[in-house]
């Protein structure tokens, strides 16, 4: 019982990171049917920058916003220079490889200037675990899912209640008609990539105290976040968050009941099987084929 609870609690913490990364993919994809394939590196950037700023004597609460701001600028630059030029291609190979290329450059740049080892980000929320029913968890780990769900709710309200949100949904649904309403589609795409990158940066800051910040921390998190968004249905924000949480819990159960070694093999096998069963994602609608 307490073991299972432990798996659920730590699963929700890591799963919430997948949710946040997946949500970033959802936001980007909705705006222009493309994304930053190296979105995991944005998360790394947020985490590493915060650690570096703190090491240079910034207060934590000052370091975080600056790091996130830089992530946002980075995301916007990616959209403008690595996604938009390739957006008209059908296969997606152009923006995929272009964003991967930028990701490789960023990763190696960080490795050179920051070092290839991992560094912790000390925060007050990682000092003492809370224990309940025999399971233990750090407040930081509670914060991540709370933030993910809170952000999702805010995002949904933003999409539903604000004009900008409505305009972004309009672009996602029908960019041609949105343009006819006077909505600047390119600017909406830029804002979307900015939001996604900011969110990625926040996810990095949230995970850094738990998992430590390193140049390579983003790769697998990014791939899993993307996989989560795809199996949920990449246009469905709520579904993506739910799927991310579920996937995190699933991983902990695999680690607990099968073996920690089998985690990714079993997890990704389930990803493949789910995609075969639900080609449009578990929370997606079937699209009709047009001739």
């Amino acid at each position, binding site marked *: 019982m307490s073991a299972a609870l432990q798996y659920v609690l730590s699963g929700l913490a890591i799963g919430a990171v997948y949710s946040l990364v997946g949500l970033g993919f959802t936001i980007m994809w909705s705006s222009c049917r493309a994304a930053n394939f190296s979105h995991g590196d944005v998360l790394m950037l947020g985490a590493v920058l915060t650690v570096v700023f703190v090491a240079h004597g910034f207060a934590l609460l000052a370091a975080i916003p600056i790091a996130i701001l830089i992530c946002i600028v980075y995301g916007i630059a990616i959209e403008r220079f690595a996604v938009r030029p390739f957006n008209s291609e059908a296969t997606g190979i152009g923006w995929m490889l272009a964003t991967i290329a930028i990701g490789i450059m960023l990763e190696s740049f960080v490795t050179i200037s920051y070092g290839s080892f991992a560094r912790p980000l000390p925060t007050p929320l990682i000092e003492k675990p809370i224990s309940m029913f025999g399971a233990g968890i750090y407040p930081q780990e509670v914060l991540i899912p709370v933030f993910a769900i809170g952000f999702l709710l805010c995002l949904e309200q933003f999409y539903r209640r604000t004009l900008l949100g*409505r305009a972004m949904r*309009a672009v996602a*649904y*029908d960019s*041609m*008609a949105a343009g*006819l*309403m*006077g909505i600047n589609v390119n600017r909406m795409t830029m804002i979307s990539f900015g939001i996604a990158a900011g969110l990625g940066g926040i996810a990095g800051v949230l995970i850094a105290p738990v998992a430590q910040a390193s140049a390579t921390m983003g790769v697998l998190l990014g791939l899993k976040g993307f996989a989560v968004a795809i199996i949920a249905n990449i246009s469905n924000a709520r579904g993506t968050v739910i799927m991310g949480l579920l996937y995190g819990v699933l991983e902990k159960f695999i680690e607990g009941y099968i073996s920690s070694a089998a985690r990714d093999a079993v997890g990704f096998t389930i990803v493949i099987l789910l995609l075969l069963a639900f080609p449009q994602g578990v929370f997606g609608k079937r699209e009709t084929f047009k001739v």
Partner: protein
Amino acid sequence: MTEQLLRIENLSVAYGRVEAARGISLSVNRGEFVAIIGSNGAGKSSTLKAIAGVVKPTTGEILLEGKPVQGLPSHEMAKRGIVLVPEGRHVFADQSVEDNLLLGAYLHARRKSRDGHGLEGMYSLFPLLGERRAQLAGSLSGGEQQMLAIARGLLARPKLLMIDEVSLGLAPKILDFLFPLLTQLNRDGLSILLVEQLATEALAVASRTYVMENGRVTIEGPSSQLARDPRVMEAYLGKRAAAPKPPGASL
């Protein structure tokens, strides 16, 4: 006095190597109701899309109030007062009727309070939309969606409202509501450029009409004159002019 609102000179539109419109010239005066008729694939929609900035024309000039605007993206065209109600409505099906209308007023939203957008005015113009304001646009019938698309277009406060195939897939009853409504809007001062397949309906509401065929304007003139033009009939049914005999007329 008639003042030219929109003037198009020698406009061509191509998709890849496919020329949809070849050398179109037409004009709309302020306060005028102009129609373009012609069969499917004649290039009518492409012409409207080029004017609205959805597609870039390959050649030609588009002058709005004398200023060249060709090649601008659609949101810039909308800002300048050229608003297109696209073929097939294109309402935002996943948003409510009210949200669709708010998006119609997107360009003017920042300046005015909620009621200032003119939503209430639209609800009185289209009472059905008022009843369904909280419903998702996707759940509306085809006729209601067309009303929503027109209302949304009006809220953008167009200098020129362009409507592509108002009748597409709609029952006659709804058309009997929509066409008189367009006439009324025009009487109230709105300039309208209508693309329509139903020739007679278009000829009845528009004061001037262009006939397009194979990407070119083949006939143009006052609608009343075109309605009597045997070539119009021929273009539609492939008949010689005298052929349409009412049943029993041959007796």
